[in-house]
């Protein structure tokens, strides 16, 4: 009989406990738990006051009440400080200062929610029993933790929203600036072409060399701006996803890029993956292009392969080129970072690669030994659906 009574005492706790943590929204979390307590215990009201500086502020109330801000004078401070875990009390003058709803008499139990403030449970007629309060204490402790989680979640959401907004602004800005820069660049290109055509025979060798230098720099800047434009559009829109045969994709890339005679490219059998051809081509072409461009060996080699890693495809591109010092492993994926002052390089290729891999929910990393070569690895999510 005693065991049976204990079970009967514990069972309501199960119901209360299961109502906690069902939502990460502060109000909804309070609604789910506190409305249940009001129903099951036949109570009339519940509210939470939170300490903010030298004030108590109401953060929840059922029924909806006034949003109250109560200055923490000595009397109120002494009163709330006297609540260690909980306190059963009557509505009196001090309590009436702590109420966001209209009441004049009645019974209360106040729970100390620690950092989350104080929970007031109010009954108009029936006094709450010490046994009930004792029973509720552990679930109220759990409730307090869930409120903390709600607040942390909200802070995280705000940060995330801000971050998304900033990213969007930055991306829009990069897009706009790149577009605006292209127009004067086109003008310079046209003007230097006219200069060369109209006055080429009047310039001395130095003048013609300077014109050539201007045009080379214009071309380089155009490539750079195109790179920024590409970078800023990756992940902006949801992309269409379909089956891409990476065997064929690599074959097409190898047809496009110039491969010096001293470089051998080995392509292993590659899988069919989910993605969009345009981005995947950018990804592979950048990495293969780098592996070829920075190969200083008489017999250079580049090998492309993959392995199946359950939810991911893991690709690798091995070369026997110059190698990269460990200290540059992170730096190379940052925008406009270059390891050497190569006029052909914009410093944006590997940033684009990293951004595409991020978009595909994957990771990119490398191993390398100076003078022996580098291996780039990257993973792509098998169930990529067009969103990061």
């Amino acid at each position: 009989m005693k065991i049976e009574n204990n079970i009967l005492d514990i069972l309501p706790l199960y119901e209360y406990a299961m109502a906690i943590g069902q939502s990460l929204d502060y109000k909804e979390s309070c609604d789910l738990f506190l409305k249940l307590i009001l129903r099951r215990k036949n109570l009339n009201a519940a509210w939470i006051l939170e300490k903010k500086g030298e004030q108590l502020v109401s953060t929840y109330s059922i029924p909806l009440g006034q949003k109250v801000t109560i200055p923490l004078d000595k009397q109120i401070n002494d009163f709330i400080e006297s609540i260690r875990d909980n306190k059963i009390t009557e509505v009196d003058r001090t309590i009436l200062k702590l109420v966001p709803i209209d009441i004049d008499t009645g019974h209360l139990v106040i729970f100390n929610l620690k950092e989350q403030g104080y929970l007031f449970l109010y009954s108009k007629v029936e006094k709450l029993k010490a046994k009930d309060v004792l029973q509720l204490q552990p679930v109220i402790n759990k409730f307090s933790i869930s409120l903390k989680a709600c607040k942390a979640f909200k802070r995280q959401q705000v940060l995330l929203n801000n971050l998304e907004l900033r990213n969007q602004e930055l991306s829009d800005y990069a897009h706009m600036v790149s577009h605006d820069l292209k127009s004067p660049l086109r003008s310079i290109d046209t003007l230097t072409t006219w200069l060369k055509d109209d006055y080429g025979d009047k310039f001395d060798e130095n003048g013609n060399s300077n014109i050539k230098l201007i045009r080379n720099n214009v071309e380089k800047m155009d490539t750079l701006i195109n790179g920024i434009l590409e970078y800023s559009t990756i992940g902006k829109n949801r992309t269409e996803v379909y089956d891409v045969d990476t065997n064929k994709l690599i074959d097409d890339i190898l047809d496009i890029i110039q491969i010096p005679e001293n470089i051998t490219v080995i392509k292993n059998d590659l899988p069919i993956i989910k993605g969009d051809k345009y981005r995947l081509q950018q990804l592979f072409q950048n990495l293969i292009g780098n592996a070829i461009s920075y190969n200083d060996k008489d017999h250079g080699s580049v090998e492309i392969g993959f392995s199946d890693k359950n939810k991911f495809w893991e690709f690798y591109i091995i070369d026997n080129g110059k190698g990269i010092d460990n200290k540059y492993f992170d730096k190379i994926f940052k925008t406009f970072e270059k390891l050497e002052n190569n006029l052909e390089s914009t410093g944006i290729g590997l940033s684009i690669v990293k951004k595409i891999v991020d978009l595909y929910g994957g990771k990119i990393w490398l191993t390398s030994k100076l003078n022996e070569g580098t291996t780039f690895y990257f993973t792509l999510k098998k169930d990529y659906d067009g969103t990061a």
Partner: protein
Amino acid sequence: MLITTNNITEIVSTISNHVNKEAALISIGEHMEIDVEELIEALNDAKLKFMGGIFPKVIHGNSILDKGIVLNTLNNVEELFLVKDISKKNYTIPQINFDESTPYSIITYVDGLTSNISHYLSGLYENYGMKTNYFGGGAGSLSLEQKPCVFCNEGLFQDAAVVSLVRMQSRIGVRHGWNKVDGPFIITKAEGNIIKEINWKNPFEVYKEVVEAHSNKQFNDDNFFEIAKGYPFGIVKDHAECIVRDPLMVNEKGELVCVGELENNTLVDILNGNQDTLIKAAENAAKESLKFAENPRKAIIIDCISRILFLEDNFDLELNAITTTISNKFPNVSIGGALTLGEISSYGEGFLEFYNKTVVIGLFE
């Protein structure tokens, strides 16, 4: 007041004369042979303010009728409004400024076959709290086919509720008379009004074991409601009568379909009652409402239709117990009401609840 004529003009004239310039609370028996939309139009033409519902049966004095209109005057109406889309939770409860020194009562009729009624009631309480008493019931057809069943000046609606806030003192009594047979059990999975698991097991298996052992009857393919109407579930409350939920049928998966919603992890007992306990409870509900009543002018009875299905011919005894108890103390009080699909009130002074198989009696002063 009871209206039995089917003539719309006569009905409107009777209502108009009865309520004078006040609003009308109109309860219509579902087999009344009138076009309710035509009635609404005529009431609007007569510039009357009103709200009402169509119920399986209506109560007038000691009579139970499925044809007839029971009319009550809503004195001193402060607000009368419609809440649509109850099931979608897509509504706003209007803000009202209450006068602290005035007693208020809310009377609400809701489509008893719609979902999320508890959410609606919770919304009422959240907004109006302890500033008013609450009283009402679920409208709809005994066929359990959902159709338009609540109305006001704006028209006839389903999936809706009509609400009037009146400056009127009310005294409310609530009782059901069902007692625990076994429990508590945990509703480990529920969806709306369907119990999908009890104690992580098939709900019908659990229910059947308890009910068959207690009733000495066996469930077969077509006697579920016949036995189940005497064995409702009771949502366990601390130190108070449980809230009854009425199992209506068992589906092919062994899930139990109830009137009224249940939530995951709710603790329930399986209950049983008999003629004596139910009638005694009805009498006690009347006594409870009388306890603080000083000068009531009308009594409105909201009694669950399933009680008449359980008590059958003996339901007269229940109604008689209520009316006699009220009349003994206040002989001139008019008594009317409805047999409903769910009953609404605060339990004592507590949170607002939606009941099944329960009697709610309101005395209005």
